[in-house]
C-alpha cells in the first residue's frame, strides 16, 4: 500500500499547455500515473499527449472525476490555481513552484486545511508511490517499491536518501517532498498519521532541516501517538545564524531558534533515532526492517 496516491488516483495537470506542464504530464503518464486531463484557461481546443484540456478545474473534475491536481503554474498565479483546485473539490493538490509569497501560502494552507484538502508544497518535487503513481517531477528511476515512508523538506536530499535506500534494495511506500518554504501545505505532523495507518509502511524517514519548528512539532506527535518507528535526519548543523540557506524556510533565527542542534536534541528526547549522515539512513532502516 501507499498513502495519498496510488494507481487509482485520477490526476489533472493545471498549466498543462506550458513547457514544464506538458513535459511532466508526459513523464507522469509514462510512469503509470492515471493522468486524466489538463487545465489551461483559453486553451481547451488543444490536446496534450492525448489528454483533454479544460478551461477550468471545475469542468475537468466534472468530466473526468479527478481526485488530484498538480500545478505547473508560475509563482504569481499559484495561489489562484490552488484555490481553484480546492474550490472545485479536489482533495489532493500538489504545488511545485518555488518563490511563492508567503502570505499567499499562508492563505492556501489554511483554506486547504479547512476544506479537508491535502496540499503538498510549494517548492516541492511532489509525491510518488513507487510503481503506482507519481504526482511530481522527480527522476522516478531511483525509486523502488517497498515499506519505507519518506517525508523531506529538501528535494535533493530526498533523492539522495532514496538513492541510498534503493541501492541497498530497500523500497519505499510513498515519498513526499513537503517543500522548503516557511509556510507550506502538509507538514511532517500532518502526514505522519497517514503513514502510521498504512500497514505497508514499516518505518518512516523524516528529512528535516534548520528553520521553524515543524520537526519539533512532529517529535511531540511521534512521542505521543506513533506506533511506526521514525528515523530523522536534520540538515544544516553548519549553517550560521540569521542566514537564509537557499530555502526560504531554512534559517536559524538570531538566538539559535530553529538550529539543527536544538532540533536533534528535541527529536532525541522524543526517542527518535537520528541519522547523522545521509548514508546512515539505509543502515538504520535495515535495523528496523529486519
Amino acid at each position, binding site marked *: 500500500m501507499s498513502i495519498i496516491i496510488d494507481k487509482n488516483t485520477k490526476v489533472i495537470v493545471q498549466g498543462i499547455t506550458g513547457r514544464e506542464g506538458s513535459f511532466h504530464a508526459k513523464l507522469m503518464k509514462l510512469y503509470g500515473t492515471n493522468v486524466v486531463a489538463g487545465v489551461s484557461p483559453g486553451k481547451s481546443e488543444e490536446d496534450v499527449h492525448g489528454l483533454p484540456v479544460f478551461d477550468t478545474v471545475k469542468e475537468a473534475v466534472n468530466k473526468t472525476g479527478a481526485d488530484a491536481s498538480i500545478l505547473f503554474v508560475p509563482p504569481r498565479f499559484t495561489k489562484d490555481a490552488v484555490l481553484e483546485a480546492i474550490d472545485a473539490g479536489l482533495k489532493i493538490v500538489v504545488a511545485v513552484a518555488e518563490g511563492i509569497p508567503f502570505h499567499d501560502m499562508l492563505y492556501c494552507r489554511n483554506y486547504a486545511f479547512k476544506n479537508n484538502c491535502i496540499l503538498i508544497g510549494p517548492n516541492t518535487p511532489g509525491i510518488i508511490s513507487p510503481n503506482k503513481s507519481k504526482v511530481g*517531477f522527480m527522476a522516478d528511476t531511483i525509486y523502488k517499491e517497498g515499506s519505507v515512508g519518506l517525508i523531506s523538506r529538501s528535494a535533493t536530499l530526498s533523492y539522495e536518501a532514496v538513492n541510498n535506500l534503493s541501492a541497498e534494495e530497500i523500497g519505499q511506500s510513498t515519498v513526499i517532498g513537503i517543500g522548503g518554504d516557511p509556510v507550506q501545505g502538509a507538514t511532517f505532523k500532518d502526514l505522519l498519521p497517514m503513514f502510521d495507518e498504512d500497514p505497508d509502511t514499516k518505518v518512516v524517514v523524516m528529512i528535516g532541516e534548520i528553520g521553524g519548528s515543524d520537526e519539533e512539532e512532529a517529535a511531540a506527535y511521534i512521542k505521543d501517538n506513533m506506533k511506526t518507528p521514525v528515523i530523522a535526519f536534520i540538515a544544516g548543523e553548519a549553517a550560521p545564524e540569521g542566514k537564509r540557506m537557499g530555502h526560504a524556510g531554512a534559517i536559524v533565527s538570531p538566538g539559535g531558534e530553529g538550529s539543527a542542534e536544538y532540533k536533534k536534541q528535541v527529536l532525541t528526547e522524543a526517542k527518535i533515532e537520528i541519522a547523522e549522515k545521509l548514508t546512515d539512513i539505509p543502515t538504520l532502516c535495515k535495523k528496523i526492517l529486519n
Partner: protein
Amino acid sequence: MKIYEYQAKQIFADNEIEIPVGKVALSVEEAVRISAELDYKVALKAQVHVGGRGKAGGIKFASNKTEVEELAVELFNKKIKGEIVERLLVEAQQEIKEELYLGLTLNRTKKTDTLIFSRSGGMDIEEVAAENPDQIVTIDIDPVLGLQGFHLTPIAKILNFDKNLLNKLIPIVKKLYFVYKNYDCLLVEINPLAILEDGRIKALDGKLEMDDNARYRQEKLLDMWDEKKEDQLELIGRQEGFVVIKLNGDVAIISNGAGLAISTLDSLQRHGKTAANILDLSGGATAEKVKRAVKVVLKDSDVKAILFNIFGGITRCEEIAQGVSESLNEVPASIPIVCRMQGTNRDQGIEILKCAGLNAATDLEEVVENVVKAIQGGEVG
C-alpha cells in the same frame, strides 16, 4: 528585504498612521537645514538595518544648532554594530506620555499571522517577553478569517477597556494589519507606538521587512531597497538568477538544490572546513548556466577551491559536466575543482569530466574529502 526606519514610516504615513514631522539627511549640512525647520528641537536617528540601534548610541537628541551639528558629525562617523551610517532621520521631538509596542509577523509553528501588543513599548520585545510576559499579548489570526473585532479584545483588556484610548488605538491596529498584508511583510513593527502628552498616538519608530518572494508585486518597496546593504556577491548572484549565500570559509559549493548544498556544508564542517559561498543552480541547469555560476563564485576572493555536488533529476549530469569543462580556462590553476555526480546521465557526465582531466566522486562524503585534500595540496580522487 529590509527597509530603513524612515521608509517604513513613510509607508505608515501613506496608510494614515501618524508619524512625527521629519526628513532624512544624507549629510551634516542637510541635517542642520532640516533641524532649522524644526527649531533645532530634534531627534537624530541613524538609519541602519541592524537591531539594537538605541543601545548602540544611534539615537541622539539636540536642542540647538550647535548640538545638531556636533551630534550629526558624531553619528555620520559612527558604525552601529559594524554597519556604517549614511543616512540620518531628523525628526521633531515628541512629548511622550506612554510607550506601546505593536507588531505583526508570522507564527511559523501554527502557520498563522500573529499580532503582538505590549504596554511596555520602547524596549526590546524579546526582553519584555522574558521579564514581563503579562505585559504582552500575542494574538493568532487565521489568515482565511483575517483580523476581526474579537481579536482586539485582549488588547482592550491590557488597556483596561479604556474606551477613549481604544477608539484611537484600534484604527491604528487595523491599518498596520492592512500594511502587513498588502505590502507582503514578513514583519512589521512599531516600537514605540507612543501616546503623546496631547493624547495623539504616533509611530515613533518603524520596522518593515518584506518577503523576497513578493518583490514582483511590491514595486514601491523595491524602490526603497538599498542594494548597497546587501552582500555584493549575493547581489551579483541574484542578478544572474542564482541564490548565492556568502559565508566565511574558502570552498565554493555549487549544487543543484539548497538541501544538497546545506548537507555538503555540514560535511565540510565535520572535516573542519567551511564554505566561502554556496551557489544553488536549482533544477534543470544548462552548460551555459554552469559557466555563469563559476564566474559568479570566482568573484569571491576567499574561494580556494570549487566543489560541485550534483544529484541529477531534471538536471542532467552531462550538461553540468559540459559546463564545468568549458569553464576550466576561466578558473585559475590555483583553484582546484572537485566534482561529484549522481542521478540522470551520470555516466555521460563522468566521461566528459574525465576528458577534461577531472575525476568525479560518487558520494557526498567522498567529494568533501577530495576538496579538503585539494586545498591542502594533495592529490585529488
